[in-house]
Every structure is written in C-alpha cells, then in structure tokens.
C-alpha cells in the first residue's frame, strides 16, 4: 500500500472529525458503529479498489444459531467478540492463533418466552467493549457486563416485563463509564425509555422515558428546542388521548451517538402505538423524534419530532452520523440522519435546527419539511381512517431505510446508505390494548417500489443533499455498510452476496457468496499480523428475512406485518444460516 497515500490519509483529520474517544488504535473496532460519531469508517487502507479482487477467505466460525444475525463483530486487541441472536451466546475468538480458535463463550440463557414477543425476529444488534468489559443486551431485557479476559459475568441489570411484550435488541453504547441502553416492543404498546447504567457495578444512573410527564421524560430547565412546536409543558401527556401515552410506544431500539465536545448523547425514538393513528389523535410527543441529552444527567437539551402523529410506522431510531459540514460557507457541527420517513435530515447538533431535509427515496406520504417551523407536511390523501384501505403508501412501513446502519467516508464525504425500495397498501383496523399481545391495528401488504427493484445502495452527498451514485439490488439491502480508507464500501445482500464496491463510483470490485443472506454489519480490523481483515456475520433474518427465519407462509400476504407479500421468493434465494466470514488479502 503506497506509503504516501497512508501519510496523506493521516494528514486529513481537519476535515473529517473522527471523534473516536481516547483515539483507540485505528486497527480496533470497539463498538458496533466503530466510533461515537457512528461513521463506521475504518482508517485501514491496505485493501484498495486495485487489490480487492484478490481478497480471499481467512477463516470462518459457525455460531450454532440460525436466526437473523444483525450484530457487528467487535475486535479489541487480538480478540474478536461476536454475539448471536436468541439465545444471545457471546463468543470470544483468539485472533493471534491461526483459524482464530474459541477463547471463551458466555451463555446468558435468556427466558425462552422472549422469542414469542420479538416483533421482527429474535435479533441482537451487537455488543460494546470498553475498559476490559464486554456489555451484552439479552432478548429478555437484561444487560450483562462480562470480563473480556475470561468471560466471567461481572454484573447483570434487569429492567422490563417480558410478559408485557418488552424486549431488548439494541447494541449498547458505553461512554465515559456510562452504559446507554434502550428497550424495544413498540408493537406491543411498550412505553419507550433510555437508561444510563454505571459501567462498574451496573447501577442505574438516570432514566428518560419517551412519553409521559416532563419529569419522567427528563425535560427541565436546560431544555431549549429550536422549534416552537416542541415547546410546552407535559407535552408527553397533552398530545395523547387520556392514558394512551402509557401504552404509546416510542421505544429506543436503534443507534446512539455521542459528541464529546458538546457532551451530548443523540438518539431517536420509535413510532407511536398503535399503528391505527385515528385511535391516538394529537402529535403523540416525543415519539418518532430525535433527542439530544446531557450524558451526565440525561436532561434533554433539545428535541425535534420528525414525524408528528406518525401514521406509517416511521420510527426515528436510525443512526445519527456526526460530521462537520460546510453550510453557507461556515463549517457547522451537524448530524446526518437518514430517516424511515424517506428524508435525509441534516440537523445542527448543537441547537436542533434542521439545515436540510431531502428525500432519498420516492415519498408520497408527505410533501416536504417546512424548514421554518420544522413541520412535516403530510399528503392529505394518505391519512389513515379505520376500516378504509390506503393504497401505494411510499415508502412502506420499514421506511426509506430501516435500522441497517450507513457508513460515512470523510475521504469522499459521502454517506453510503444500504436501504430498501418498498411501498405498501394498508388498512387501519380497530384494536385494543391487551397486555402481552401486539397492539397494532393495521393489516399491511408491501410491494416493490418504483422501478421494481426492492433494494438499493445510495451514495449520498450531505452537503449537496443529493445522491452521487446508486446501485439497484433485487432484494432489500438489509445489511449494514462499511467504508474504508481504501475507498471501498462493503455491504451484503439478502441472498448471501458479500460485495465490495469502489467508494467513488460504485463500481463492483469483488463479491463472495456466503452460506446465507447477510443482514449483519461488516467491520474492518488490523489483525495481530498487521494485515487488514474484513469480517461479517452471515445468517438471514430480521424483519425482512422473517419469512425464512420464522418459516412463515407467504400465501398470507399480511404475514410478518406485510413483508411476506413482497418477499415471496426469498425462500428460493436463501436458507437459514449462522456463520462468521473473515476475509484478507492473500
């Protein structure tokens, strides 16, 4: 790898703020998003577009579980940590030995009942490693700290009632000794929260709910939202029918980012429950919106609701990539948030002002965002009314892009979005809250979006707010993306192809057929031998792959909340699996 390029690379920090805390050695991948800015950018540049074609398999590891593998392998030092879907087994692989044998394994033995209440496959989106400890979220609402050296359990924190449909699938984020976790289960009427635990002993430091009175949402004196519509007291109660906020959803199951300079934590809240919006008039605050909270106290600094009174299950839990952007000549600290409602938001992360909001897929549920008031203007024809069918809702419930995280390359200054291209027909139905049963109230059938292809990878230029290049994929691209300093972007397809494309042009450079559909998050690390390795978990599942992972029957179009109608051929394209694949240059 030409030394000049490597030196030039290191000379570029001015533009790209790699906000990696305490500058971890650039070969490691300590957290799912690689860094607190959630860039998923690997500074390693050994593998470039030129030599990628010669990539070959270094070693593999079978996880022994066949559900959706959405996690990102983590590498710290010369140990790789991977976590499986339910029963959430943690494996530590010794990278110093050839073939990376197992160093230790940890089985949390979560409650079997949890499998029945995970709405969209019994997935786990990853671990976090910090200060010699591995932090694991289990499906049955436990957060466990494990000693990275020997796999012994240090402490275990339980919070959440599995019988009421509450589960935990997100990857925790550890910042300055605080472990940030959130719950999932919005489809069961679970009221969302974000909790900070002390990393040493697992004691709860603060808890911020997504609905309810201000003191429970930790809204206090230093809550200064940019837009007037977010100001008011107890909005978490006033914008709901009586009592509805107690089963109002707004769970926190997605990605969290942290800005050390502003000391703010950024995360999104899920959609309000139930899907039948007519049963919950009002803006349904603080669901489908972005929170910025102080790390130490959890007090909210600002909040921006992306989809007020959401009618189409547009959670706002997607990743917030923190970058500095030239806006009207001045550099501004922004976060880029590709949302399920079909818009890529560029928001000033200090104040919460929306700089730009541009659709990256075909959107007909709304006509645009009014930057002056921050209001999302809904299209009148698509409103939900109980008992009537609304057709051609684009984007569909999983949105323009669902949970699968994007990657940002400071070199090309492009955000690489792996996403889907789906629309749907939906009928809102009367429904009631019965504890432990889904509280949805809608029948959905999805169908391919315009163009007929169901997936796409988009290289998005946040400054110009338009797509530089796109790759159309037949199946939804449900895997995460990885950008490397070698100007390569890695992603996987749902029928098992693991692909590398040139970051500048999108040209396919290398691909490898894995055993099962890829819904995991690829990572890059430097092995003990100094070589660059690319690792990804293959094992189809998640909401899109539930048809295969759950053996569903596609003759019923509404199965898997509507995905069965559009994934009828997935059973022919892939089978279940659970395998780690690691590649390297020969």
């Amino acid at each position: 790898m030409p030394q000049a390029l490597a030196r030039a690379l290191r000379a570029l920090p001015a533009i790209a703020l790699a906000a990696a805390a305490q500058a971890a050695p650039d070969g490691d991948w300590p957290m799912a998003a690689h860094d607190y800015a959630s860039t998923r950018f690997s500074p390693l540049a050994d593998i470039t577009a030129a030599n990628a074609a010669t990539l070959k398999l270094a070693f593999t590891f079978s996880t022994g579980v066949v559900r959706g593998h959405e996690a990102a392998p983590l590498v710290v030092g010369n140990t790789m940590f991977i976590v499986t879907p339910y029963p959430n087994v943690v494996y530590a692989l010794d990278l110093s030995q050839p073939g990376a044998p197992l160093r230790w394994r940890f089985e949390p033995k979560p409650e079997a009942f949890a499998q029945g209440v995970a709405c969209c496959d019994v997935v786990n989106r990853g671990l976090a490693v910090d200060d010699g400890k591995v932090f694991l979220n289990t499906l049955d609402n436990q957060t466990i700290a494990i000693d990275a050296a020997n796999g012994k359990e240090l402490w275990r924190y339980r919070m959440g009632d599995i019988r009421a449909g509450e589960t935990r699938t997100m990857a925790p984020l550890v910042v300055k000794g605080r472990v940030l976790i959130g719950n999932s289960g919005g489809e069961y009427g679970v009221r969302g929260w974000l909790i900070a635990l002390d990393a040493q002993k697992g004691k709860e430091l603060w808890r911020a709910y997504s609905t309810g009175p201000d003191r429970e949402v930790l809204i206090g004196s230093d809550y200064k939202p940019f837009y007037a519509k977010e100001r008011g007291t107890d909005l978490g109660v006033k914008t709901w029918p009586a009592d509805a906020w107690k089963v109002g959803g707004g769970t926190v199951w997605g990605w969290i980012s942290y800005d050390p300079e502003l000391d703010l934590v950024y995360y999104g809240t899920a959609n309000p429950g139930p899907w039948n919006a007519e049963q919950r008039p009002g803006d349904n605050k603080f669901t489908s919106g972005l929170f910025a909270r102080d790390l130490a106290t959890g007090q909210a600094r600002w909040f921006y609701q992306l989809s007020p009174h959401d009618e189409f299950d547009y959670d706002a839990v997607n990743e917030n990539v923190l970058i500095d952007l030239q806006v009207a000549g001045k550099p501004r600290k922004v976060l880029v948030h590709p949302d399920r409602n079909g818009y890529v938001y560029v928001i000033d992360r200090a104040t919460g002002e929306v700089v730009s909001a541009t659709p990256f897929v075909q959107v007909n549920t709304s006509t645009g965002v009014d930057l002056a008031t921050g209001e999302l203007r809904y299209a009148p024809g698509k409103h939900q009314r109980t008992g009537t069918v609304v057709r051609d809702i684009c984007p569909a419930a999983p949105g323009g892009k669902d949970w699968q995280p994007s990657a940002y390359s400071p070199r090309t200054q492009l955000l690489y979005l792996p996403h889907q291209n789906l629309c749907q027909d939906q009928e809102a139905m009367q429904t009631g809250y019965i504890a432990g049963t889904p509280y949805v109230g809608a029948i959905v059938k999805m169908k391919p979006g315009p163009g007929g292809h169901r997936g796409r990878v988009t290289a998005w230029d946040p400054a110009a707010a338009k797509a530089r290049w796109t790759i159309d994929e037949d199946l939804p691209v449900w895997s995460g993306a990885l950008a490397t300093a070698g100007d390569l972007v890695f992603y996987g397809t749902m029928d098992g192809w693991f692909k590398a494309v040139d970051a500048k042009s999108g040209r396919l450079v290398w691909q490898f057929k894995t055993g099962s559909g890829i819904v995991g998050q690829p990572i890059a690390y430097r092995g003990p031998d100094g070589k660059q390795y690319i690792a990804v978990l293959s094992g189809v599942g998640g909401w899109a792959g539930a048809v295969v992972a759950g053996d569903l029957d596609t003759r019923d179009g509404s199965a898997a909340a509507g995905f069965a109608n559009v994934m009828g051929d997935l059973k022919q394209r892939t089978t279940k699996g659970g395998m780690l694949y690691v590649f390297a240059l020969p």
Partner: protein
Amino acid sequence: MSSRFLDRALVLAVASVGALTSSGCERESRDFLPPKPGAEVGHAASAAASAAAIANAAAMVGRYEHNAHAVSAGKRLWTWYNCSGCHANGGGGSGPALMDDVWIYGGDAGTIYLTIANGRPNGMPAFGSRIPKDQIWQLAAYVRSLAGLASADAAPNRDDAFLTRTPESASDPQKPETVKPSVATGRPQ
C-alpha cells in the same frame, strides 16, 4: 313403470332430506350458550386436564368445527384478541404460521385448546384465565380452519376487509403432521 319409479324417487328424496337436515342442523345451529359445565375441560395445566381436553375434542368437533357460527365467532375473536398480531391471518410473524401442515405441538382441537389455555414456553401467552372456555373452543375450531381442517361448508368466507389470503373455506386442507420443534423452527429446545 310409473309407480315403481315413484317409490324409488320417494325413498331417494327422504334419504337426501335426512342427510341435508342432519348436516344442516349441525352447521347452522346458533347455540349462544356454552354446553353444560361438565362437558368441557378446566384450564388447569395438569396432565389430567390435557388428557381430558384431547378426549373431549372429539365430542366438540360437531359443536364447533362443523358449526358455521362457532368458526365465524372464532374468526372474530382471532382479530379481537389480537391473535393476528403474532400469527397474521395464518401466515405467521413473531408467532409460527398456522395455515401450513407443520404443527409444533400437534394439530388436533384438544392440543390447540391447551396451547391457547396454558400457553407454550416459546412465547405463546396463556389465555386460560382471560378467555372463557367456550370461546377457546371456538378459537381452536377457527385455527383448524386456517389450515383447511374444519369442514369447508362451515368455514368462513372472505372478510369484508383488506384481502390478504384466499378465504378459509376455499383453502385446500393441509395434511397435518407434527414435526419436532428443533428441526422445524431452528429454535433450540
């Protein structure tokens, strides 16, 4: 010639009316009250209860699976009690698919009754204390009609709602066979 023809026609008519009447009465009766208390099974999770449930199922077939009112009441409760949340309209979701031929714990009415009443370890909640027994039998009859196992005449036609699958009355019966859980669902025991 005509008198013999007449006799044979008469006998044929009486026979067909008899058949029509019995199947008709069974299919069309609207019994709004549940059977007398002794006839069905308590929902205690004891082994005795399960044996009784399965034994009772045979007697219950005429009253539920072949009765149009019971199966359609089962379909209404399927939506009312949010079963469609996990099992959709038989295709499955977080819960297993019920319209195919794979039955994790067995496809007979008695076993389905116990699944609903006592729940199952892998995530099926127990409704025994929350749903009256008569309604659990109605739900069990509807679940069997999802796979086309209830009588086609009594099975419900399409709903006045969004079409997601062919109606239960038109779905061809799936030969039920119980498959060991691990192979079927990939879920470790």
